[in-house]
C-alpha cells in the first residue's frame, strides 16, 4: 500500500528572500529519505507533499556468523540465545554456525517520526535564532505548529515544544487557527482560510489584480517575487500621490516607492512616471479605502521628507562639501573619504584624466554628506550626479559622478563617459590596493567589502572601455602579490565565465601577458578564430613538444647560427620561419605546420654534435619566442 505524505512547518513570518532556499534545502533532505517531495511555501509555512510512500520499508536479511562447528555446546547455545532461536534452528555454513537474521522493514511512519525533527532543524538559513532558551533549537523564526501526516495518520514527534498534529493555521486576520486538515483537503482548507499556498498562484493573483487596475507598471520582477513571499493572500491596490512631487528626480521617487514602501511605480503612455503607485496588500480587499489612504499618506510623508532633504542639500554646493568628507569614514585604517578623494583624484590624473574627470573625482563622494544620501544610501552617486547637474557642473562631470558605481553587477553597463570610466576605475583600484595593504583580503565566501565585485567591474571597464594604456599602468604597478593573484583570477573569471572563452585559451593568451586587457581580449578573439582551423592544434601540440624539449635540455639561450644548419627539413623550417616572420599568425600557422612536422619527423634534435644540438634548440627557441607575444600555444589542450 502506498501512502501520501504532508509536512507543514508553521512558523512566524520568514524573511521572503530566504524562503526559496529553505524549500530547496528541505527538498534535498527529504530526498535522502527517498521522498521526492513537491515544495511550496508562504511566509508562515514551509510545506512538502509527496505520494507513493511505502507503509513499510522492505524487510532485510543478514547472515550472522557464530562459533566454529567444533566449538563447545555452551558457546553454540549462547549464540543461539543471542539470536533468539533454538540451537537446532541454526544452520551451518562451511566451518561455522550461522543464523539468517530477518528484520522486518520499519514502518514508514516511525522512520519519519524519528528523522523529521532532525531534518527540519537542518534546513539551511542564512541566519537563525533561538527562542525557547539558550540551549534550545535554532530556526529562522519560531516554529508554532507542525502538520505531519502519512495517509490518514499523524506522524508523531515533538520539536521545540511543538507536538506535530493535523491542525494548520489560516491567514492571521481572515482565517482561523487550529484547523484540522487531511492531506486531501489541505490546500482547499487553507484557501477557505485566505491562504493561497502556491507561490505561482499568488504571483498570478498579483499580476491579474494589477491588470484589472488598468495602470501601466514599470516591470519589476524582483519586487514581484518579494511580494509573492511576503503575502499569503495578495491583493494589489492602486494609490495616487500629489503630482507636485514629480518635480523631484524620478530616481528618488522610484527609490522611495520601491525600496522603502515596496510599491510598483506607474508609467503614463509616454513612459514617464505617473503620480500613482501599486501596493500589494496581504488581505482580501480594501473595502473602505482605508489601506489606500494609509499608504498614500505614508508616501506623501516620505516624499515630503525627500523634498525637504533635497531643498536642504541645495543650501551647500557639492564643491563646498569636499572638506566635510574628513568626517566620513571610508575604512578605519584607510582614513576618511577626504583622503580617499585625494588619492582617487591623483590616480585619475595619472591615468590621463582630463579636467572634467579630475573635477568629477574631486566631487564624486561629496553626496555622502547630503541628507538625501544619508536617508537613501542606495542613491549615492545618482544624487551626486543630480546635484552636480543642478549646480551647473558640465555634463561630462555630472555624468561621471552619477555613473561612478557602474557597473553595479554583471548585467549593468560600464560608465558611458571616459571621465566616468576613469573615476570608477580609480575608485576601485584605490579600494583594492588599500584593503589588500591592510590585510582585508576576501577568502572563500567572505567578502564583506565586495572586493570581488569591485575588481570585476574594473576588469570590465578596462576591457570594454578599451583602456589599454590605463590597463598597463594599473596592472603593472601592482606590488602586492596577493592582489596580483586576485586580479589575475578576476581576469580569468571574466574571460572564461562571462565571455565564454575556453579555459586553455585564456591560459595560453594570459601566459603572454595580461597587463593590457584590451590587447588580451583581441588576442583571445583571434585565438578563438584560429583554433578550429585544421593546422592549429597539431602545431600547438608541436609547440608543447618544443617546450618540453627545451626544458629537458636545460636550454640556456645559446646563440643561433644559421651556418650550422643542415640542408633539408632543418633548413626548410628555418627558411619558412624567416619567410613568414612578421606576418599575422593566422597566415603563419598553415605555412609552418608542415615544416615543423617534417622537422620532427626527419631531424634528430639531440644531435651527437653538441654545437649542432645547441643550434637546433636555439632555432626552436626563437620560433617559440616569435609567438610568445600572442599566446603560449603549449597551454592549449590538444587531443593528440
Amino acid at each position, binding site marked *: 500500500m502506498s501512502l501520501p505524505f504532508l509536512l507543514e512547518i508553521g512558523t512566524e513570518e520568514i524573511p521572503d528572500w530566504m524562503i526559496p532556499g529553505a524549500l530547496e534545502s528541505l527538498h534535498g533532505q527529504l530526498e535522502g529519505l527517498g521522498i521526492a517531495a513537491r515544495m511550496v511555501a508562504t*511566509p508562515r509555512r514551509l510545506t512538502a507533499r509527496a505520494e507513493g510512500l511505502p507503509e513499510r520499508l522492505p524487510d532485510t536479511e543478514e547472515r550472522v556468523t557464530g562459533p566454529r562447528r567444533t566449538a563447545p555446546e555452551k558457546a553454540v547455545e549462547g549464540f543461539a540465545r543471542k539470536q533468539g532461536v533454538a540451537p537446532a534452528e541454526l544452520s551451518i555454513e562451511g566451518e561455522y554456525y550461522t543464523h539468517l537474521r530477518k528484520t522486518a522493514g520499519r514502518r514508514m511512519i516511525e522512520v519519519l517520526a524519528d528523522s523529521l525533527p532532525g531534518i527540519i532543524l537542518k534546513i539551511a538559513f542564512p541566519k537563525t535564532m533561538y527562542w525557547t532558551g539558550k540551549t534550545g533549537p535554532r530556526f529562522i523564526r519560531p516554529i508554532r505548529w507542525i502538520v505531519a501526516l502519512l495517509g490518514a495518520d499523524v506522524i508523531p514527534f515533538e520539536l521545540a515544544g511543538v507536538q506535530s498534529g493535523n491542525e494548520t493555521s489560516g491567514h492571521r486576520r481572515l482565517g482561523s487557527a487550529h484547523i484540522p486538515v487531511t492531506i486531501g483537503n489541505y490546500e482547499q482548507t487553507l484557501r477557505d482560510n485566505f491562504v493561497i499556498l502556491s507561490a505561482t498562484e499568488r504571483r498570478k493573483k498579483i499580476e491579474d489584480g494589477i491588470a484589472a487596475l488598468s495602470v501601466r507598471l514599470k516591470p519589476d520582477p524582483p519586487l514581484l517575487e518579494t511580494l509573492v513571499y*511576503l503575502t499569503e493572500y495578495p491583493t494589489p491596490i492602486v494609490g495616487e500621490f500629489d503630482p507636485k512631487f514629480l518635480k523631484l528626480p524620478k530616481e528618488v521617487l522610484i527609490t522611495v516607492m520601491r525600496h522603502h514602501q515596496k510599491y510598483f511605480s506607474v508609467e503614463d503612455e509616454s513612459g514617464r512616471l505617473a503620480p500613482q503607485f501599486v501596493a500589494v496588500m496581504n488581505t482580501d480587499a480594501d473595502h*473602505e479605502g482605508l489601506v489606500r489612504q494609509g*499608504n498614500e*499618506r505614508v508616501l506623501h510623508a516620505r516624499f515630503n*521628507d525627500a523634498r525637504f532633504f533635497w531643498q536642504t542639500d541645495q543650501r551647500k554646493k557639492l564643491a563646498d562639501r569636499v572638506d566635510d568628507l574628513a*568626517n566620513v569614514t*571610508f575604512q*578605519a585604517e584607510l582614513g576618511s573619504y577626504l583622503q580617499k578623494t585625494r588619492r582617487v583624484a591623483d590616480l585619475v590624473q595619472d591615468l590621463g584624466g582630463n579636467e572634467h574627470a579630475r573635477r568629477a573625482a574631486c566631487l564624486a563622494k561629496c553626496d555622502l554628506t547630503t541628507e538625501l544620501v544619508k536617508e537613501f544610501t542606495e542613491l549615492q552617486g545618482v544624487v551626486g550626479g543630480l546635484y552636480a547637474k543642478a549646480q551647473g557642473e558640465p555634463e561630462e562631470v555630472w555624468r561621471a559622478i552619477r555613473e561612478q558605481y557602474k557597473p553595479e553587477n554583471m548585467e549593468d553597463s560600464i560608465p558611458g563617459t571616459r571621465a566616468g570610466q576613469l573615476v570608477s576605475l580609480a575608485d576601485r583600484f584605490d579600494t583594492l590596493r588599500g584593503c589588500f595593504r591592510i590585510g582585508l583580503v576576501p577568502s572563500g565566501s567572505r567578502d564583506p567589502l565586495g572586493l570581488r565585485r569591485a575588481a570585476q567591474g574594473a576588469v570590465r571597464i578596462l576591457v570594454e572601455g578599451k583602456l589599454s594604456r590605463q590597463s598597463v599602468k594599473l596592472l603593472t604597478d601592482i606590488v602586492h602579490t596577493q592582489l596580483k593573484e586576485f586580479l589575475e583570477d578576476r581576469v580569468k573569471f571574466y574571460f572564461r565565465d562571462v565571455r565564454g572563452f575556453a579555459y586553455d585559451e585564456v591560459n595560453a593568451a594570459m601566459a603572454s601577458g595580461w597587463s593590457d586587457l584590451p590587447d588580451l581580449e583581441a588576442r583571445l578573439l583571434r585565438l578563438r578564430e584560429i583554433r578550429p582551423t585544421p593546422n592549429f592544434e597539431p602545431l600547438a601540440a608541436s609547440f608543447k613538444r618544443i617546450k618540453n624539449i627545451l626544458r629537458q635540455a636545460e636550454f640556456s639561450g645559446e646563440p643561433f647560427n644559421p651556418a650550422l644548419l643542415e640542408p633539408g627539413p632543418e633548413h626548410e623550417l628555418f627558411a619558412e620561419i624567416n619567410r613568414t616572420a612578421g606576418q599575422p599568425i593566422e597566415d603563419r600557422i598553415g605555412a609552418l605546420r608542415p615544416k615543423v612536422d617534417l622537422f620532427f619527423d626527419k631531424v634528430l634534435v639531440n644531435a651527437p654534435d653538441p654545437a649542432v644540438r645547441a643550434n637546433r634548440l636555439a632555432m626552436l627557441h626563437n620560433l617559440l619566442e616569435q609567438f610568445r607575444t600572442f599566446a603560449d600555444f603549449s597551454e592549449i589542450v590538444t587531443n593528440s
Partner: protein
Amino acid sequence: MQSFQEIIFKLKAYWAQRGCIIQEPYDVEVGAGTMCPETFLRVLGPKPYRVAYVQPSRRPADGRYGENPNRLYKHSQLQVILKPSPDDAIEQYLGSLEAVGIDLTQHDIKFEEDNWEAPTLGAWGVGWQVMLDGLEITQFTYFQQCGGIDLDVVPAELTYGLERLAAFLQVKDSVYDIEWAPGFTYGDVRLQDELQFSVYNFEMAEVETLWKLFALYEGEAARLLALYPKSSQEATQKARFPLLPAYDQVLKCSNLFNTLDSRGAISVTERVGVIQRVRKLAVGVAHAWADQQGAAQ
C-alpha cells in the same frame, strides 16, 4: 478622536492586563527605550520579567528645528518586554492594535524582516518591522544577545513609535498637529524642545566641555567597574555593589557621544574608538550585572 495620551493610556492598560509592570520613563537621557536598565539589564539572566513603559528617546542628529513634520530630536517609544516571549507574542501584539481602535480586518498588516542591532550595547536580535498600511509602526525583536552575553531566556521586545501611531490614528500629516490632550497639540507641548535642542546640538554645544564630561562619566563608570568584587567569597559586597549607578554613567557617555556626533565633532579616527569605549563599559556592566544576579540566587 483619541488623544495622544489616551492612546498611551490604552496601550499601558492593555499590557498591564497581560501581566506587565507599568514603569515610568527612565530619568537619564537615552537614545532608545532598549537602553533603559528595565530592558538592558533585566533581559539578562533567567528571571522572567514583563514590563512596559513610555521612553522619550533622544537622537540629537535627527533634530530638525521643529521644521520637518516627521523628524524629531526626541520621540516617544512605548517599550514592552515580555520575558520569556510567549508563544502567542504576535497575537498579543496584534491585540494591542485593536485595543487602540484599529480594526485589523480593514487594514493591511505585514511583518517585514528587520534585524535589530546596537553595537554600542553589544546587543542584537532578529525580528520584523511591523507595517500597517505601509507605515512602520512597531519594531518587533526577539533578543538574542545583550551586553555581549547570549541570553538565557529570549525576550520579545516591542517598540511602538507613538508619534507615528498617533498621527495614523488621528489622520495628521504633521506630528506637531497631533492632539496630545484636548486643547493641546503635540507642537504646544514639544515644539520648543525640538527647536532649542536642535540649536544646542547642532550649533551651540561646546565641544570641549562635552568631551570633558564624556571623560568624567567614562572615568567614573570605569572606576566603579574596576572595583566590582571578583571573588565569589564576597557575596555581600557583590549584592550591594552599585552597578546601576555605574550604568547611568554609561548612558551619559552614550548621549554625549550622540551629541558630539551631531555637532560634527567626532573625527573619523575617533569615531570607531569612541563607540568601542562606550561598548566596553556597557559590556562590562552587563557581565558584572549577570554575575551579581547569579550570586544573589
